[in-house]
């Protein structure tokens, strides 16, 4: 079984972001980066399926040269090889999905695993777009997957509970939080990953137009809450909820 997984380089989700004074975007100068947490889960799942079924796991990352760090991270988790599509600057989910489509057509995987959403743009679009472009089925927000020869049974986290569906392979799956707990690469694996194959391509090589359709014109701080007031005990809290906040 050949599995393609994606690794997006995102700002560390635990760091507070700052918006540039001129509102043109996020000030990335003092941020650290890591692989999108949902992609880590997707990579982990691909590795578990490979352990069971054999085959190959290929990690794809799209972005500047720095995006190679996150692809290498996937390799140090245990993926076999990497593909980096070098693009500087802004891309929308549509461009990402178009690039991934052309990689899928070249690589012909049986399964493509993505994260359900990138925790920077919070778009939650790429997996679904890619499925439609390829004319494949999608199983998004997966919390469990069982792969057979030509099909997979997927449990999805949906409003209202857990939905169980069947998807023909090749197909697209996006990972939700409860799918697994990703491993931490050990030092020898990190060393070994440095020697693994990492191919670099340009959108031009793939014949993909990278003009975005959805453009962020400017950014602003959301309204800030004035919090921080403390109360001494339950009677005071109840009094304030009643007399001041008037919610009871």
């Amino acid at each position, binding site marked *: 079984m050949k599995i393609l997984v994606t690794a997006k380089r995102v*700002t560390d*989700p635990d760091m*507070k*972001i700052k*918006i540039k004074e001129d509102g043109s975007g996020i000030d990335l100068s003092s941020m650290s980066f890591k692989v999108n947490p*949902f992609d880590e889960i997707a990579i982990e799942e691909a590795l578990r399926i490979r352990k069971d079924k054999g085959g190959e796991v290929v990690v794809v990352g799209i972005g500047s040269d720095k995006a190679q760090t996150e692809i290498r991270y996937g390799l140090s988790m245990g993926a076999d090889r990497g593909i980096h599509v070098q693009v500087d600057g802004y891309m929308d*989910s*549509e461009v990402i999905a178009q690039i991934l489509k052309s990689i899928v057509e070249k690589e012909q995987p049986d399964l493509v695993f993505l994260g*359900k959403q990138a*925790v*920077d*743009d*919070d778009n*939650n*679009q*790429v997996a*679904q*777009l890619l*499925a*439609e472009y390829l004319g494949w*089925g*999608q199983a998004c*927000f997966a*919390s469990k997957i069982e792969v057979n020869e030509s099909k997979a049974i997927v449990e*999805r*986290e*949906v*409003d*209202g*509970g*857990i*939905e169980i569906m*069947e998807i023909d392979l090749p*197909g697209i799956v996006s990972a939700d*939080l*409860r799918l697994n707990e990703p491993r931490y690469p050990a030092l020898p694996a990190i060393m070994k990953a440095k020697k693994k194959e990492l191919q670099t391509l340009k959108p031009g090589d793939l014949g993909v137009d990278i003009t975005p*359709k*959805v*453009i*962020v*014109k*400017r*950014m*602003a*701080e*959301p309204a800030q*809450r004035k*919090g*921080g*007031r*403390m109360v001494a*005990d*339950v009677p005071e*809290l*109840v009094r*304030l*909820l009643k007399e001041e*906040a008037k*919610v*009871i």
Partner: protein
Amino acid sequence: MSSVLIVVEHNKQKLKMATLKALTFARQAAKKLNTQLNLLVIGHEVEAVAKQLQPYGANTIYLVEDPAYKNYTAETWGHVTAEVAKQCDAVLIGINTGTTGRDLMPRVAAKLNAGMVTDLIDFDGDLFVREMWAGNARAFIEVTTPITVASIQGTAFGVAEPGGTESSITRLEIPVPKTKTRFLEIRETKSDRPDPTEARVVVSGGRGMKGPENFKLIEDLTDLFNGAVGASRAAVDSGWISNDLQVGQTGKTVAPDLYIAAGISGAIQHLAGMKNSKVIVAINKDEEAPIFQVSDYGLVADLFKVVPELTEALRKEI
């Protein structure tokens, strides 16, 4: 004439309240764009849903019924939505956000060669507004394609009231496409409580709850208000409570009149889902917990002592 088209989410022949919030947005958008407003009901034996929507003043309610459309799949519903969008010349196609909307709409966007905006909170007739980076950045977005597809963040819009002329219902036959996915079953969360996105009061528990049995304390408190139960990721990951009650960046976004967080530290990802609540109360034994920075009223205490105490005190007040 071009139109704004809203896909109607429903469950067991009943309209979801979030659809009426999407409708509030859609009315505003149709006015700004000077277009018609149409609704689309997809399913099996769902005429009752279309009828419930007739008093809301849309131009046309499209009704597409087939046993194969009974259980939502992205492929079938995506096909129907795109076909109806073409028929009614839709320039803006939306649905309330949620797992259905998020799963469905990118597929529709791909079919119509449209740009998509996830979880929009505003539209000025030109730019769309949404939050990114776990709610820490507000982005103003231009969509360059003639058609825009969107999921609509319900917390930003009120529930639409009936109004305008009674809508007509138009049945459309849309042949079922061949698909590569099949719905098998749903393991539903059994609960008589409202959904956290719909309740006036939400009481959420986190890792501080220590175990599933203690969620009884949260339930007793929220039931005073006919409120909803919510949770942090840590509580869901621990298997104490069902996945669809997770509040946060990657779970549900809620904005009730009163949000009470017990044993929740207030990680960025949690705040993203509840920071627009009207009044926030935090109960945490750690006075340094970041949840206190966004709470209107903070109580540093052991939740096992004060949550029952609060329930008793409120029982006398309401």
